[in-house]
């Protein structure tokens, strides 16, 4: 492993001051379940690691009238087990339990889950996040892209956003809180994710010297939510496509809907088209199918991932029907 500096600040301000201003030089270390694997494989080689696990106020889960507050250092395991989460955000608890393995969930933090790097096999094999050959030809489009993006893939980014938890959080309307040298800021989680255009950009809006401090989820009273993952293997596998849905009903009709697809684009993919299609409709096989078709109508599959269009449609249709059939939290 390449030598690196290791620092362990005990406050947010210290952490921020230790971070560099360009990506690649410094990395925040939380649970390490992703970062350490990338370092061992020499995919990333930061010169300094800032361990944030000693910063006490980045921990903890609490519920108030404003909703749920989750400290960035909360592990996926603790969050899944939290009684308030189970009761008020049952679909979040379900998505967490389906993520990774118990060992990983005991270490992996929510902040790290938001920032985990894509699973793209070109990236993981050291060929770059926006991989090109010596002649500048894009490797993914001409290569093995069966697991790559079918939406939002017109630029050089062809990978898919890796978190299976984030789409559910976005469907619940989550916000993310960030702290940096200029102070605090807060933005909707869906705005946090961006599609990089150059190798010096990341997959999110974070500056290199900012820290995620917490995730806030508004109250979900009356929300009927669901998520649906299509996996080739039953356990410990990355999904091929997934969908998360949160419906607010007015009688038997949909008043408003939040629809987010996962594993289809370089970012979690909210679908206003599907949301509009559902609005004012009763939920049944036909309306769910229509919404699914609307969500995928502009899909631009690559040479060998056309099947994912169908999978994404099915995931969304099933998530909508599942949401409608379950009681509101």
């Amino acid at each position: 492993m390449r030598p690196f500096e290791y620092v362990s600040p005990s406050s947010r301000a210290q952490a921020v001051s230790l971070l560099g201003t360009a990506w690649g030089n410094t990395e925040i270390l939380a649970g390490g379940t992703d970062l350490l694997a990338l370092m061992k494989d020499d995919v990333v080689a930061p010169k300094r690691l800032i361990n944030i696990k000693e910063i006490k106020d980045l921990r903890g889960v609490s519920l108030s009238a404003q909703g749920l507050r989750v400290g960035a250092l909360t592990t996926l395991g603790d969050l899944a087990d939290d009684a308030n989460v189970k009761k008020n955000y049952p679909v979040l608890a379900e998505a967490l339990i389906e993520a990774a393995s118990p060992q990983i969930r005991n270490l992996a933090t929510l902040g790290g889950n938001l920032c985990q790097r894509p699973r793209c096999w070109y990236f993981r094999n050291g060929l770059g996040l926006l991989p090109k050959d010596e002649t500048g030809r894009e490797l993914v489009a001409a290569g093995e892209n069966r697991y790559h993006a079918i939406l939002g893939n017109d630029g050089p980014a062809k990978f898919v956003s890796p978190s299976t938890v984030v789409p559910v959080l976005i469907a619940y309307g989550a916000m993310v809180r960030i702290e940096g040298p200029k102070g605090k800021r807060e933005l909707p989680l869906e705005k946090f994710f961006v599609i990089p255009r150059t190798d010096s950009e990341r997959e999110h809006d974070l500056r290199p010297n900012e820290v995620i401090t917490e995730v806030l989820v508004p109250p979900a009273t009356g929300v009927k939510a669901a998520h649906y993952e299509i996996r080739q293997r039953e356990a410990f596998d990355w999904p091929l496509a997934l969908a998360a849905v949160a419906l607010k009903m007015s009688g038997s009709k949909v008043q408003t809907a939040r629809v987010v697809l996962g594993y289809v684009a370089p970012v979690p993919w909210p679908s206003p088209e599907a949301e509009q299609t559902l609005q004012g409709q009763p939920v049944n096989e036909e309306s769910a199918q229509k919404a699914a078709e609307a969500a995928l109508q502009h899909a631009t599959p690559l040479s060998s991932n056309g099947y994912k269009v169908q999978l994404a449609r099915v995931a969304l249709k099933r998530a909508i029907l599942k949401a409608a059939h379950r009681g509101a939290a």
Partner: protein
Amino acid sequence: MPDYAWPDAEHRTLIGKRISRVDSPAKVSGQAKYTYDVHRPGMLYGKVLRSPYAHAKLVSVDTSAAEKMPGVKAVHIVQGPGSTIHWEGDEIVAVAAVDELAAEDAVRAIKVEYQQLPYLVTDTEPPQGSAEGQGPLSMDDIDDMLDNQVPSQQMVNQIQQYGITAKPSEDTLKGLKSDGATDAVLDAIRAAAVHPDAGSRPKSNYQKSAAQTLGDPDKAFAEAEVVSEGLYGVPLITHCCLESHGSISEWTDADHLFTHISTQNVSGIPGQMAEPLKTPASNIRVHQDHVGGGFGSKFSPDRWGIFTAQISKKADGKPVRIMLERAAELKVAGARPSAYARVKVGAKKDGTVVAWQSLSWGTGGPGGGGMPPIPYVFAVPNQRKEHTAIRNNIGPARAWRAPNHPQAAVLTMCALDDLAAKLNMDPVEFFGKNLDMAKPRQNIYREELAIAADLMGWKQKWHPRRQNQSGMVRGVGVSFHTWGGRGHASDCDLTIHPDGSVELKLGSQDLGTGTRTCILIVAAETLGLPIEAIQLQIGDTIYPPSGGSGGSTTIGGVSSSTRRAAVDARDSLFAQVAPALNAQPDQLECVNGRIGVKGDSSRSLSWKEACSKLGAMPLTVRGKNPDKSKPPDLTNSGVGGVQMAEVEVDTETGVVRVTKMVAVQDCGLIIDLKTAESQCYGALIMGISYSLFEEKIMDPGTGRMLNPDMQFYRLAGLSDIPELVVKMMTGKGYDERGVIGLGEPPVISPGAAISNAVANAIGVRVPFLPLTPDRVLAVLGQKAGA
């Protein structure tokens, strides 16, 4: 003449019973040590610089910076400037350092300049008219073939067919020999025609074998009433041993090497290390307690095993360890060749198969690879077959559990199953009808087919193929397989001490199959002792040599020589004990830990008392199997098995789940029913894994393997494994054949059975394994569009 014959059923106390593995407690408690767990004092860690390119010439290799790095103890150039690399991950430089990280840093500091060459990493259908390499071979061509691990017989054929460009000197031949040329190749070169004026040999990736015909296929197809045509295939998969390949070598003095290695072939390793190390095999000791999977890929010390010894020498004899990282394991430590075919089969209306035609192709990497034995099990009377081997840069192939048979099963059983569908016949009836083509095992198959159908509930579950269904659908499929499994040479020493303790030593290995347990069962049964009364030592070259565990030959080899040693030892003991019992030796028997006179319970001695009659010296007997020229007496070869699979397919997502599998298997006389069943369970799990998930995925743009890890080189997990039903055929008709190997046969059929079940479920064939959602949806989409 001693009577070695296996005891009759009524006299067996241990053989054929369900006995737990003797090493299970050690394994589940973590006490069992694998080579991966061995840490020797002062051990250095070896790491290897591997080529990032699939095909390249090395222009320069500069190790000067690496040599100066802290902690680095030795640097060893494996392939220097001028060498040609034929696959990604090939070894270039090996480094040893005080820890893994220092070794990795040093590898990173090595500068290599490559000249990249054109490569091929796909194995799609060969283009029409693709010419094979032709013309006489230069010594460079032959060197290239050796580098490429082209099988010896194939080289001989080429040399005989095309001749050579120049007569080589004996020195050149010596050089070729040290590069791995066999004597057969050298003889072929010496005898070859010389064509000095021929131009250089054009290279081709495609090597077409001559068409083979049997009977009159044209006439048979013309007369066939139903003909079915289809495309079938299995991709290149890896062995993915859970314990990766590797070894730890140390020079205990200037001339003696001690190697721990993860291997299927303990006794065979020194002989393979001797030549490259210029050290007599007798000075090389090899040891292994447990091995975490080999599946045919761990017979040789491997290049990296040789480095451990070479680097250890440079590092004053300190132990040097190289265990492959997961990525290297998947890239270079072995793969199963792919096989694809366009198959046409014809039958009469009553289902009798009359004609077979296949155009097959596949790759085993640089060596190309051979045609699987098709049509498999069913000897169709009229056949035409052509095969093209693709030589490419996908990496080297190795034997994979039942080499060529799983591929042959898919190509054959799927084509026949499609024919049955076209005939509107239940496959059980259809295959049953054609079993006379499965000589000499037709009766075994018939019996097994009926049992399998019953255990699967085939009659209730099978339905004619249905088109255009939606939702979750189910289907069932069947396949047949065969294998040899004769016992290998295996010597053992059995010692009875005057205090009654018993030791048995042999250089065999237990691949996790239950070899230890089975050896103990045979010895204990023969001596009338409990299993615990015998001390067994295996896994070391200080013990008598025993064959490598390949070809399902171990159980036959070790059980037969153990039986012989135990019978001989028992008879010698009887001779010494007889006077004390006032009897003739041939009147004695040993049962339940006592030696006594048959039929007279009043005259007997405890085992311990009896052994004390040996006097001061222990009794040691060497067990040895009869040589190959004689028919084996205790063992046999040739088994048949039938398997059925039931699947559930989500027609909207294309996700396939196996919901039940049935394996009915014969293997002659079974030594331990429990470990035999366990072989079948393991094989079914491995079969589900390669049917649904496994595939070595290569990037056309970089020549690299994209899934050299266990997130995208998927293996079946617990939740992917359904109800598995195993029935071993035993009793009359089976036991009296003697012991036959079982390691390989049960892994042959799952691919075909599962593919057939999916075809039954969705009404259409998914041509290639693994049966992934994209492939399933592709055929469902086609059907809907049609």
